[in-house]
């Protein structure tokens, strides 16, 4: 059975960086389809199509073997801990996972709080950092616009991804600690990679080659 090979591409910030990098390569996305609302986009290589997915959903599609390969931020990978192969650090989409608080609030101020509240969409990474630091905190789960939480009193600080720091600055926030670093990773479905390396490895090499040519 000669099925179309699917690659899961991220929507959002990482996707905005990725799509131009693939222009003019064998994995360039069909521009007409890209402008439509279609989520399965043909590439310049027959038999290979891209799925456009939210970062938080993407690892599931790859882990289940629906897509053979995917590109996703290491922050999402670490948070979800899915059974995936991680074939390469692609280097782009670099950002920091940081503890951010209102300007003037230091890490020591936060440490001194008897009841620290942190808002985040990265509870696992935050818990690991708290454990390393010997701190306890109440975690407030948020999925977007975390910058509002300290300003409106929902939390004392946030743990969020920071790329340039522009959004933080616009909301009067500063980084008080860096918990980790993130970048785009090429992931593969374990089953597809180990049972059909003759199909999947050339596709991975094609993707790496396309990104390298545009680096």
């Amino acid at each position, binding site marked *: *059975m000669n099925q179309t090979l699917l690659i899961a591409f991220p929507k959002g910030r990482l996707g905005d960086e990725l799509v131009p990098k693939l222009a003019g390569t064998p994995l360039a996305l069909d521009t007409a389809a890209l402008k439509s609302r279609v989520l399965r986009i043909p590439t310049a290589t027959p038999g290979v199509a891209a799925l456009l997915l939210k970062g938080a959903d993407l690892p599931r599609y790859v*882990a*289940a*073997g629906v897509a053979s390969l995917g590109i996703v931020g290491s922050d999402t990978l670490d948070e979800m801990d899915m*059974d*995936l*192969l*991680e*074939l*390469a*650090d692609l280097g782009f989409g670099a950002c920091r996972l940081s503890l951010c608080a209102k300007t003037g609030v230091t890490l020591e101020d936060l440490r001194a709080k008897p009841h620290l509240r942190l808002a985040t969409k990265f509870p696992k990474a935050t818990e690991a950092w708290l454990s390393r630091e010997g701190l306890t905190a109440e975690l407030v789960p948020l999925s977007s616009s975390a910058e509002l939480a300290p300003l409106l009193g929902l939390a004392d600080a946030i743990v969020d991804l920071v790329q340039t720091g522009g959004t933080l600055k616009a909301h009067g926030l500063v980084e008080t600690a860096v918990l980790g670093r993130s970048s785009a*990773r090429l992931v593969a*479905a*374990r*089953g*597809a*990679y*180990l*049972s*059909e*390396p003759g199909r999947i490895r050339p596709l991975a090499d094609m993707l790496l080659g396309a990104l390298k040519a545009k680096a």
Partner: protein
Amino acid sequence: MPVRTPHFPDLLFGSAARLRRWEGALMGLLADHGYRELHPSLVLREAVPEGALRFFDGDELVALRWDFTVALAGLLARSFPTPPDRVAYAGAVFRRPVQPWEAVERFEVGCERIQPEGEPAAEADVELARMLMAIPGLIGLKSAILHLGNAALVRRPLEAEGLFGELADAVVAALSRRAPHRVREALDGHPSAARLSAHAEALLSELDGPGTLSALESSPYASLLEEERSHMDRALKTLLPILPPNLELRVDLADVAGLGFYTGPTLRLWAPGAQQELAAGGRYDRLFPDLGRPWQAAGFCVRLSRLLDLAATRPDLFEEPR
């Protein structure tokens, strides 16, 4: 009202018949090779292992059989002063699923080869590989891939560097992801970082058959692992000439799945396009000594539930039953 209930599979006519047919054929194969069946109790009354399905029987906490190997080992260690050398089993295990879509009840057929400590084990390892090689033909899989690995390729360098606990777990997790960059990240600043990173690169460099073994030459632990390499080389030389048509043999140096359990050679059976391994096994020489018996053991298990799922979703991978 719960919206997620544990998934115990119901089998309709075709699947039920297929399960019985495969179970019978596999147990027949094992019996032909001198493996005698044992049937350990479905209910465990010993310490309840992590991942088991637990429940109360009156005031007593008990669990369903979650793994045949562990249940068999307990039974054998209690019942025999010297081990029966070849045992087989068939039935269901009940394991807490990692993913919500996985079944709790899983059907398995498997076998175990047991020897007194110190006896040469290479012949037993090859015997298990040969039986596993016969299984795709027996159940009608059109083509399959057998991966040969060796848990010692990772275990021994980690032990030689004195790497245990969380750091060793992080290295193993990175290798499981086949991510050498993660190995480097995990070992950042550790005295053995350069050596172990180079070793990881060597283990992850190829997945292309017999030539893969030569990748070990570039590892800083090449001499430490000479015995494992020659063991794998001998196994390949024995198995390649008798490889059935439609079965491919691959060497997978970076196989770390079950590293806490396996101590030596490992075997994994795949079908092209399958998302999960269909059979798995290997050498686990620490199991019986932990139960107070100086025995060494190796075995494999055929995951019939996964095969049933594969037959339902990818019938093109199977021959029509005769």
